[in-house]
């Protein structure tokens, strides 16, 4: 908590995985009690997974923030170091984005066709959309890390905004 550390976010991710695992164990338990695996989630599972999801996102962005913004800020302008590796990564990610978008549209077309023999499952629709969003996020992150000039301000405490 003293600086923008990696310890707390890393623990958040571990904790998130533990919560998801607990939610999975709840399924096993319900299945053992009732003799079948329920199609719907129990309220307990939804709660565990909701907290797991928040902690996972928090841990992920926390680690990313440490990578992109550093543990401690120092006032001034900081120019990025040019390198060709991020360009290659960017090209590969862009190609992956094009592929994921194409596949996503394909699942939508298939889902719209009521007579389709294999309607695309929702996990595939959601997963492809998630992949698209994640790739765009990574592209922006790479751009910020390797191509954007960073500026750190040390502003006067008394601001004019909004009043």
């Amino acid at each position: 908590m003293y600086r923008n550390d990696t310890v707390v976010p890393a623990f958040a991710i571990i904790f998130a995985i533990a919560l998801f695992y607990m939610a999975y164990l709840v399924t096993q338990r319900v299945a053992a009690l009732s003799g079948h695996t329920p199609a719907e989630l129990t309220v307990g599972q939804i709660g565990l997974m909701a907290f797991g999801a928040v902690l996972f996102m928090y841990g992920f962005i926390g680690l990313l923030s440490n990578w992109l913004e550093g543990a401690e800020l120092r006032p001034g302008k900081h120019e990025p170091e040019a390198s060709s590796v991020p360009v290659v990564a960017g090209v590969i990610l862009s190609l992956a984005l094009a592929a994921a978008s194409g596949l996503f549209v394909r699942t939508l077309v298939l889902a719209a066709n009521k007579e389709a023999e294999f309607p695309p499952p929702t996990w595939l629709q959601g997963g492809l959309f998630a992949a698209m969003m994640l790739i765009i996020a990574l592209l922006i992150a790479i751009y910020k890390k390797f191509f954007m000039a960073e500026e750190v301000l040390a502003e006067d405490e008394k601001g004019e905004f909004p009043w």
Partner: protein
Amino acid sequence: MYQWLDERLDLSRLNTKFLRKAFPVHHSFFLGEITLFAFVVLVLTGIFLTLNYEPSTRPVKIEGYNDPVPAAYASILYIDSLPFGAVLRSLHHWSAHIMIAAAFLHMLRIHLTGAYKKPRELNWLIGIVLLVLAIVTAFTGYALPFDNYALTATGIGYHIGEAAPWLGKAMSAILFAGELEASNTKTIPRLFSIHVLWLPLLLLAMIGAHLLLMVKQKHTQPKYAEKVAPGRILGVPAMPQQAVMMGVLFLVYVAVTTFIAGAFLAHPVEAFGPPTPNTPSVKPDWYFMWIYGILQILPQWDLKILGANFGPQFVGGILVPTLIILGAMAIPFLEPQKEKQRYLELPSQHPRRTSFVLAMLMFYIMATLAGYKIDFLNANPNLSSGTLIAILWVLLIVAPILTYIISYILMKAAYRSREVEIEFTGRASAADD
């Protein structure tokens, strides 16, 4: 184009006054943003849902059902049949849970780092109202699909609210337009207007006020900033750096939640069917479970004062939550201070407060556990109900106290050894994190 607008709207002033505001950087500040993005996604997916949902219980004939079903239920089936429709509905449902969980964790971070102290008391109060509003909004949306499960689950909260002395009837008249029954045709249109219009507008206004105050009062800063730029706000400009980080977080939010929404379709209405006279066995949502748990272990009694009933429903469902909310609201005012709070406090340096937060968490967990009383009894036929209730009471009271004592002792011990170390070396180690 920019020049044309600038001459008329003085955009460069906006740039220097607002877009170059310094935003302190710390991972714990992302919890508030996650809550915010959950709200944004709820509004966006909510718009899609309203375009396809029919807020009515009029009977309609649809394929696959012998008898007519309520139009609301039928429209949910229609939404699920649209391409990506089921995922978007599930995303709306998951985001509601995630918004409440994120707001709760955001509140914990504010509490643990002392960010509620002067001058941010008002924002703490607004925050508590926001958390309650978010929960009420989720509650009013639950019954909208009008399936057997949703109606029964909403009934649990409805009966708790009804137990409010003198006000209960008026509250159900406002929220549910009368009694919550499958035959009450006014309930769904009423819940619909409250859920999609009034509460979201209220949330929007309160979130706006929350953020406005945050910008005016300046964000707390991580402690190292005191050494780097004493008395100043050390941060990155709102445009472009902070905006880029927020954009990345928004995309990560959508990615993670859409993945979960697609893989785990929330609330599959067809599994429960339209409302019937026989109620399925349901539990309230996890954020009500601790209240439900307390109700499960309270003894039954009847006490009437001035025509109002002060039974266990009142004590467990209304009195205890109200006291907890009022207690939370009092927190900033219990520790008045002259100086403004500018930096994050380290939880390790406030063992009493940190232990209190952990003890409260334990209390919620134990009360939630009590909500599973019936399942414990079903799984262990030899266990008598009285014994189980006694065990649950002991857990509810003893576990939080033990948590407090153990965490306090551990923190004191760990911190004392650190103090010695600081004295010895003259500076704090990296373990400050």
